[in-house]
C-alpha cells in the first residue's frame, strides 16, 4: 500500500514537472507546480512528517503559488512572449546536460548513500509524542536563535517587496 502510494505520487510529480517545463502558458505551469507540491506533501505524510506536509500545503501551495498566479495575471502575460527566443540553440545542450547531471547523481548514489548514526527520534517515539509537538519544542529550545532570525528575514523581505513594487 505504502509502496503503491509512493510510486503513484512520484509519477505524478515527475510527469507534472515535465509538463511544467514544456508548458507555454505560465498559468498552466503554475497549476502543474501546485500538483507537484501536493504530491510532495503526500510523500511527506508517508515519511511521517505531518507538520511539514501541512505547512507545504498551506504556505507553498496556498500562499506562494497564489502570489505567483497573482503576478502572472497582473502582468497579463501571453504565450507569444516566449516565441522570440534568442538562444534557441541552448535547448538541446540543456537537456543533454540534464541527463549527464542525472547520471552523475546516479553514479554517486550507486556507490553508497552515506547514512550516519541513527538519532533518538524513532517513528514510535515521534508517534507517541506527536510530530508537531516535537518540532515546536525544538524550535523554541535548540533552534531558538535561527527561529528569531527567520522573523527578521521575513520582516526585511516584506519591506523589500513593498519598496521594490512601489510606483516611483
Amino acid at each position, binding site marked *: 500500500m505504502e509502496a503503491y502510494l509512493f510510486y503513484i505520487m512520484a509519477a505524478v510529480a515527475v510527469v507534472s514537472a515535465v509538463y511544467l517545463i514544456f508548458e507555454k502558458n505560465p498559468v498552466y505551469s503554475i497549476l502543474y507546480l501546485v500538483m507537484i507540491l501536493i504530491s510532495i506533501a503526500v510523500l511527506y505524510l508517508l515519511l511521517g512528517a505531518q507538520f511539514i506536509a501541512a505547512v507545504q500545503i498551506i504556505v507553498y501551495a496556498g500562499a506562494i503559488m497564489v502570489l505567483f498566479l497573482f503576478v502572472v495575471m497582473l502582468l497579463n502575460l501571453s504565450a507569444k512572449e516566449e516565441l522570440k527566443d534568442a538562444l534557441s540553440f541552448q535547448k538541446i545542450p540543456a537537456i543533454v*546536460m540534464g541527463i549527464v547531471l542525472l547520471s552523475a547523481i546516479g553514479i554517486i548514489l550507486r556507490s553508497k548513500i552515506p547514512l550516519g548514526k541513527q538519532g533518538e527520534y524513532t517513528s514510535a517515539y515521534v508517534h507517541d509524542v506527536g510530530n508537531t509537538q516535537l518540532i515546536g519544542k525544538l*524550535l523554541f529550545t535548540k533552534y531558538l536563535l*535561527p527561529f528569531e532570525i527567520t522573523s527578521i528575514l521575513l520582516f*526585511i523581505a516584506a519591506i523589500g*517587496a513593498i519598496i521594490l513594487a512601489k510606483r516611483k
Partner: protein
Amino acid sequence: MITVTHYIVLSAILFTLGVVGVLIRRNAIVVFMCIELMLNAVNLSFVAFAHYLHSMNGQLFVFFTMTVAAAEAAVGLAIIVAVFRNKETVNIDDINIMKW
C-alpha cells in the same frame, strides 16, 4: 519496501528537471518556478534522510528553507513586477542591462 534511495532518486530527478527548466525557458516567472521546484526536491531529500536516520533536524531545516523560499518569492516577484514596469517584458533575453 521503499528505502531512502527511492526518495533520493526521485529528488534527483525533480532537481534535474528544475535545472533543465531554468536553462531552456525564457519567461522569468517560469524560471523562478523552476527554482522553487529545485528547492522542493532538496526539501524532499532532507525529510527522507530525517525519517530514515530517526532525526528531527531535517524537518526543522525544511521549515527554515520554506521561510527563505517565501521571502525569496516575495522579493523576486516584486523585482519582476518592477522590471516589467520599466521594460514591458519578462523575457530574460531582453533584460540584459547588467550585461557589459
